[in-house]
């Protein structure tokens, strides 16, 4: 058993505490000289965009969902995986608290969800996917989901959809900021600071965060047992979730320039360091000195962006990079012998991009958008087996893309758009990627709409898929998806109550779906499955308003999804064809309810995923073939205190309210009821 070693991990923590105190008083001092800005989450419910409202012709027919500002503030201290699982129907597969989290957007694979940060693709060109646990909500101001066809307005390849993260500023002539500190169960600590200042010509925003957790929650392990020598009964050990601590910190600096009334120039730089160990499975009873692991990542993300607002159009030019260094070390200590390195895996990827787009309004009703971008992706990946030379690959791929979109408002009630995109991957052009959307408001009732979209899309294999040693398959084809959406929705106001609801149906067929399987040579190799079909329904409903002194807001999502394997059977005994893909739930739902009064606020978050199969045949002959349905309840409550120069917010979070014993994957125990206390100060 490993003992608590937080001090080994956080030698800088004492300094950070001192720094925290200094910063706190610095901010307080700054606040005295700044004009109070009332940033409040006590549900002064501002108009919050949840789904399509007025017809924006460029977005006609496209399905998107913007996470509202209150939810963003409530989720400040969590990572993107928690924000998404609590507010959207996307399934997040989480390998434990603080551990890797991947997304399944409309039943697709993790690599089919792309994450863009102000246009920078955060997907690893090596793995093709994003670890959502590594993206802090602190560093983004707006989160929007673009479903299926809607993703093509940004780039190709997102067969599920795009999670779009954006930052923004306000051109205020004053200093403002936010300071947050928190402590929680299992030695968890959260610190965040944001300072914004400038004038109408220049704005600066600086954000920094630090979080750490021993993550050593206790539990009774029912998957292993000793036998009582007297009674013969089982003795289940009470254990702690050891080897799963994490430490993350980062800095985001943004400079916004407004040199002319029509020009905005932005510079951003995001640095982040993540470090964690991966816990053992519940059935693991290895030597405490065996299989000691550590994973670390460093990311550098510089970005510059120019926006020019012409009389009839907007020009946007941006360039940036996403550079990430990763290291994973697994070793065993052997008494009487040197430490044995079992796995020493290192990788470095560099993604550079340049993009230009121009949105030209040909008339009041007709617009034309064109964009072009080039990406250079380079991966150097090595793995050093024991007593061996490193082996790996060093590969580069250059991708280009050109797109045009024509959008028209036929009248106040009907808009449509069509687009075409041409990608060149490496030196090979993909077939043209077309897309079309239409939206119609048939009734005079404001907010009622019908919409639909169609598209084709291609997702290229990752560089690991192509070149990993051993097993990379350079003969892989791009995954080809055909997608269709239809939807309807309504929003209305009755007295002080605002209501909205929407339903969207979708289906897609993905040919050449990439999957890794074992080979006769003994290693795994990716190959193209024949086809996977996905289809489903998504519901969103919400109500908000005021009742006497109470402000309230409730928003819920419910999704039903089928992701069906339509591959050719491997043999007569193969029972996977026609079955739901493993680990993708058929149903998911979530609900967020906010109530506030007299500056007290109360939020309840509820999340549900139906059972998930762990086998491709959807067998149920063993308990381990199915993960039981997942329900989770979290509760936040707090109080705002308004001062002359700012607002204090004191908040308590209770996670896993009903102290459920549960797991999100087969063999990782999740924590029971746990708490955190947050103090936030905004000025």
């Amino acid at each position, binding site marked *: 058993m490993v003992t608590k070693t937080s001090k080994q991990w956080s030698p800088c923590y004492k300094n950070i505490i001192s720094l925290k105190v200094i910063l706190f008083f610095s901010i307080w001092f700054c606040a005295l000289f700044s004009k109070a800005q009332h940033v409040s989450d006590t549900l002064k419910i501002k108009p919050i965009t949840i789904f399509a409202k007025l017809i924006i012709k460029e977005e006609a027919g496209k399905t998107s969902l913007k996470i509202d500002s209150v939810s963003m503030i409530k989720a400040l201290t969590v990572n993107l995986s928690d924000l998404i699982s609590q507010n959207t129907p996307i399934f997040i597969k989480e390998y434990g608290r603080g551990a890797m989290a991947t997304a399944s957007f409309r039943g697709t694979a993790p690599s089919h969800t792309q994450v863009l940060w102000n246009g920078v693709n955060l997907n690893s060109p090596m793995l093709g996917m994003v670890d959502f646990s590594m993206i802090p909500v602190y560093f983004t101001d707006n989160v929007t989901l673009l479903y299926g066809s809607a993703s093509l307005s940004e780039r190709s390849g997102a067969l599920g959809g795009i999670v779009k993260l954006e930052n923004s500023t306000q051109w205020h002539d004053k200093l403002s900021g936010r300071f947050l500190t928190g402590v929680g169960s299992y030695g968890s600590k959260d610190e965040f600071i944001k300072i914004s200042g400038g004038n109408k010509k220049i704005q600066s925003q600086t954000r920094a965060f630090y979080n750490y957790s021993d993550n050593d929650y206790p539990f009774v392990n*029912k*998957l292993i047992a000793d*036998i009582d020598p007297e009674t013969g009964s089982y003795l289940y050990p009470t254990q702690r979730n050891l080897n799963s601590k994490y430490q993350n910190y980062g800095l985001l600096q943004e400079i916004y320039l407004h040199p002319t009334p029509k020009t905005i120039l932005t510079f951003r730089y995001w640095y982040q360091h993540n470090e964690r160990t991966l816990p053992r*499975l519940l*059935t*693991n*009873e*290895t*030597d*405490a000195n*065996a*299989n000691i692991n550590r994973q670390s990542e460093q990311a550098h993300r510089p970005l510059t962006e120019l926006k020019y607002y012409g009389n009839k159009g907007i020009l946007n030019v941006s360039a940036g990079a996403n550079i990430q260094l990763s290291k994973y070390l697994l070793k*065993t200590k052997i*008494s*009487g*012998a040197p430490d*044995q390195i*079992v796995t020493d895996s290192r990788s470095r990827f560099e993604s550079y991009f340049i993009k230009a787009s121009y949105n030209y309004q040909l008339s009041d009703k007709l617009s034309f958008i064109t964009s072009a971008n080039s990406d250079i992706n380079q991966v150097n990946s090595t793995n050093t087996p*024991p007593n061996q030379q490193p082996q790996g690959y060093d590969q580069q791929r250059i991708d280009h893309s050109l797109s045009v979109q024509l959008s028209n408002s036929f009248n106040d009630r009907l808009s449509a758009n069509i687009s075409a995109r041409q990608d060149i991957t490496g030196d090979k052009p993909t077939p043209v990627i077309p897309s079309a959307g239409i939206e119609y408001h048939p009734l005079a009732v404001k907010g009622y709409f019908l919409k639909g979209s169609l598209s084709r899309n291609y997702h290229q294999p990752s560089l690991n898929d192509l070149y990993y*040693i*051993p097993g990379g398959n350079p003969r892989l084809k791009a995954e080809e998806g055909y997608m269709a959406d239809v939807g309807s929705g309504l929003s209305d106001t*009755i*007295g002080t*109550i605002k209501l909205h609801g929407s339903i969207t149906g979708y289906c897609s067929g993905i040919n050449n779906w990439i999957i890794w*399987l*074992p080979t*006769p040579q003994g*290693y795994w190799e990716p190959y193209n499955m024949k086809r996977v079909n996905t289809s489903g329904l998504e519901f969103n409903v919400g109500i908000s308003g005021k*009742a*006497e002194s*109470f402000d*309230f807001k409730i928003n819920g999502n419910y999704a039903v999804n089928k992701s069906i394997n339509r591959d050719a059977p*491997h*043999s*007569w*005994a193969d*029972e*996977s064809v026609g079955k739901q893909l493993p680990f993708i739930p058929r149903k998911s739902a979530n*609900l967020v*309810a906010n109530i506030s009064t007299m500056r007290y606020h109360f939020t*309840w978050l*509820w999340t*549900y995923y139906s059972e998930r199969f*762990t086998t*491709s*045949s959807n067998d149920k*002959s*063993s308990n*381990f073939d199915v993960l*039981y349905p*997942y*329900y989770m*309840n979290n509760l936040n409550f707090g109080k705002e205190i308004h001062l002359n120069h700012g607002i204090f917010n004191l908040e308590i979070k209770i996670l896993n309210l*009903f102290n*459920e*014993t*549960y797991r999100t*994957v*087969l*063999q990782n125990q999740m924590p029971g009821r746990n708490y955190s206390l947050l103090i936030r100060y905004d000025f």
Partner: protein
Amino acid sequence: MIINRLNIPLLAFTLLAFAGCMKDDLWVKSHQSTNRMTHGVFIINEGNFMYGNSSLSFYDPETHTLQNDIFFNINGLPLGDVAQSMTIHNNQGFIVINNSGKIYVINSSDGKYTGKITGLTSPRYIHFVNNEKAYISDLYAGKITIVNPVTLQITGVILTPGHASTEQMVQWNDLLFVSCWSFDNKIIVIDTRTDQVINEITTGKQPGGVVLDKFNKIWTLCDGGWVRNGTGTRVPMLQRIDPVLQLVEKSFKLTSDGAPSRLAINGSGDSIMFINNGIWKLGVTQSSLDDHPFLNTGSHLYYSLGIDPHTSEIYISDAIDYQQQGIIYHYSSLGAKIDSFKTGIIPGSFCFN
């Protein structure tokens, strides 16, 4: 007013009705009665790496009855992550759980869990020297662990300097021959009286299986390792070793389009078999391999092979897509198909009772 002050708590209460209750206890606890397992074959299903869904099946070839997931059903505990092998000694079944770092011990006739050996690193196989001493090989530690099979306590280690892992073991007189498979090309020789490494024999790349034939010759199957495209050719081979001279005395080159694996020997010790796409068979006195495999692979991806030492009947597993119950094909010693049945995920090895 649609919602008034009284309705707010009511609304909150109603919302709480959505709260669920997960049943982890019901999910993991299970006790079911099973038939006795006095004669037949245990099938050790590896399960998926890091899923912890390995399982144990038992098949009775006389009655053609199959019992799946018996360890969990009988004992209410999962077997663990990547069950690698099983050996029966004194009516006790020792199941080596590679990525759980332990060996479960069961009563081999009723499957009841009686004890375990823990604190290992990445155990692969257990070999019994006598009733008080057994050796455990390890994939991720350069050592052999010595245990007492009665007390189930670790009593010592044998370091294997220069060899990061150890694999299969076979004993001739007081000498134990241990293959060093992972990125290695040696078989080390251990004197079981002194627990010392006394020699090492150079073989082809990555020697895995080792068996002893009726003439006291040791056979090993080298899969040839892995060679980066354009930098050479894999040379998998089957080799015969003289345990007296401790030298390779004969090598059979194998086709390089597969990964030869799962070396097995029949009950009379005169015929060995292995997988190399199809199933290959070689009499221990043969001077060359046959031109064609004993059993063709067809549409299958054969994963494992076992030969009943009592009847020489053959069991072959196909893991299909490695994410569903694998299938076992049961053949006579002459290659006539007798039966087929589905067990657990990735049926990886066989243990005959």
